[in-house]
C-alpha cells in the first residue's frame, strides 16, 4: 500500500487571493489569464503538512487535500 495525496482547487470558489501560492509555491500558481489558482504537477510530493496549511490558509476554502492509498 502506498500513501498518496490528491489536491484540487474549486474553480467556482477560487478568487485568486494567492495565499496558496505564498504558502506552497511548489504546489500552486495563479493562472494569469483566469486569475484562478491551479495545482502544479508534483503538488502531491510537497508534503501533507504544507498542503494542509495552504488549504487552511485559503480565505474561501477552495482547496481540498485528500489522502488515499493505492
Amino acid at each position, binding site marked *: 500500500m502506498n500513501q498518496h495525496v490528491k489536491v484540487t482547487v474549486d474553480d467556482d470558489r477560487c478568487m485568486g487571493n494567492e495565499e496558496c501560492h505564498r504558502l506552497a509555491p511548489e504546489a500552486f500558481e495563479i493562472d494569469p489569464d483566469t486569475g*484562478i489558482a491551479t495545482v502544479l504537477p508534483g503538488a502531491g510530493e510537497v508534503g501533507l503538512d504544507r498542503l494542509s496549511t495552504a488549504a487552511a490558509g485559503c*480565505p474561501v476554502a477552495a482547496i481540498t487535500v485528500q489522502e488515499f492509498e493505492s
Partner: protein
Amino acid sequence: MTANSDAPTVRFEQFDDVLEALRNPDLSRAFDKRSFAEGNHRAGIVSVIHGREHRDRRRIENTLFRREMVVAYEQERFPEVVEEILDQFPEDTVLDLLKVAGVLSIPLACRRAGIDHDNDLDTLHRLFEFVLTFAQGSAILDVVVDPQQVRDRVTAALDEFGTGFFDTSKARRVQELAEGADPRQDLVTLMLHHRDDPRFLFDDAQILREVAIYVQGGSHTSAQTLVNAVDLMRGFAAPEELLASVADDRSLAQRVIHETLRLRPTTPEIKRLVEADTQVGGVSLAAGTRVVLDVRVANRDRDRFGADAERFDPRRSMDGDTPLWGLSFGGGHHICIGRSTAGGFPVTGDADDEPSPQHLFGLAAQMLSSVAGRNLVPVQEGTEVPQLDDQTDRGTRWRRYPVRFRRSPEPWPGG
C-alpha cells in the same frame, strides 16, 4: 436580500465563530443597503457586492496585488519615498502623527489606484483630507453624527477628487490604452481595460468610486494603525527602548503593527446580512438576519492568543494557524484585498524566528520604522493631547495625535 428595520440581529464574538461567519458565502456585506447606496461612495464597489459578480471582480482586482509587485515596491521604492516625505517635516515642531502617517501612505495608495499627483506636502495633505472624508462615509453605520451630513460631505469630496485628480489620471490612461502602450498596473487602467466586459460594464462614476475607495483603503487604515501603534507603545514598560528597536528591526516593527491591529482593529465590528438560511457556530440564521461580528473581542480569545491576550506584547508567540493580527483584515470572500501591501505576510511563531528572504513586512511596518528613526516623541502639553475621532463610535480612530521628531532620542512623557 434587503434587511428590514425589525430584522433580528445576532452577535458572534468567539474567534472560531467569527471566522466561520466571515467564510460563509451566504453572508453578504449588504447589512444596510440604503446606507451604502444613496450618496455613498461605496455603492457598487467590490467590497460591498456579493456572489458571482463579487468573485469575478476580485479575480481581476487581485492581480494588482501579486506578490512580485508588492515585494518590488516594498524593497525598492517605498523606503525612499517615505524618507523623502519625512524630510519635509521639521524637527522640534508639534506635528499631527495621523496626518504624517496619512501623507506617507498616500503615494502607494494612489499608485495602486492609478491617481497621478505631485509629492509636495500640500498635495499629499489635500489627498489625505479626501481620505478622511471618504472614511467617514465608509463607516456610515457607526457614525454618531447625522448620516445625511456625512453623505453630503462624501459626495462633495468625491466631486472635488474627481475633477482635481481622477479626470486627468483617467484621461492619460485612456490615451495610453488607445496608443497600445504597456498597461499600467493600477486600478484605473484595469477598470478601463475591462469596462466593456459584459460581466462588469463599468461607467466613469463607478470607476471613480472604486478608485476613491482604493485611495482610502490604502492609506486610512495604515495611518490609523500607525497612530494606534504609537499609542499602545506608550503603555509599554520601556517605550523608548522599543522605539529604538523598531527603528532598526523591521521584523519587530511588523510585530508591533500586527499586535496593534489585533488589539485596535480599525473596524472593531464587522457587519453582515444573511442572504439565505444558514448556520454559524451551530446557530441557525434565517435569511434577512443581521449579523454583527465582534472582532475586538474575538482578537482577545485566550484559546488563540494566550492567557494574557488583553496585553500589548509584540513578541508574543503564536501557533502556526493563527496570525498575530487576528481577524483585523476580515476573512473569507471579503478579506481585505490590500492586506499584504499594508501588513505584509501574516506573522506566526516566535519573535526570534528568522523571516524567510521572501517575507513581506508591509508598509505600515516600514512607516513605523522610519518615524522611529526620526526619534518620535508623543506630545502631552496643555491642549496638545491625543484626540480620538468623535464622529464614529469605533474607538480605534484618531482625530489628532501630537508628536515631535527630535534630533536624538528622548524620554517619552509618562514613559
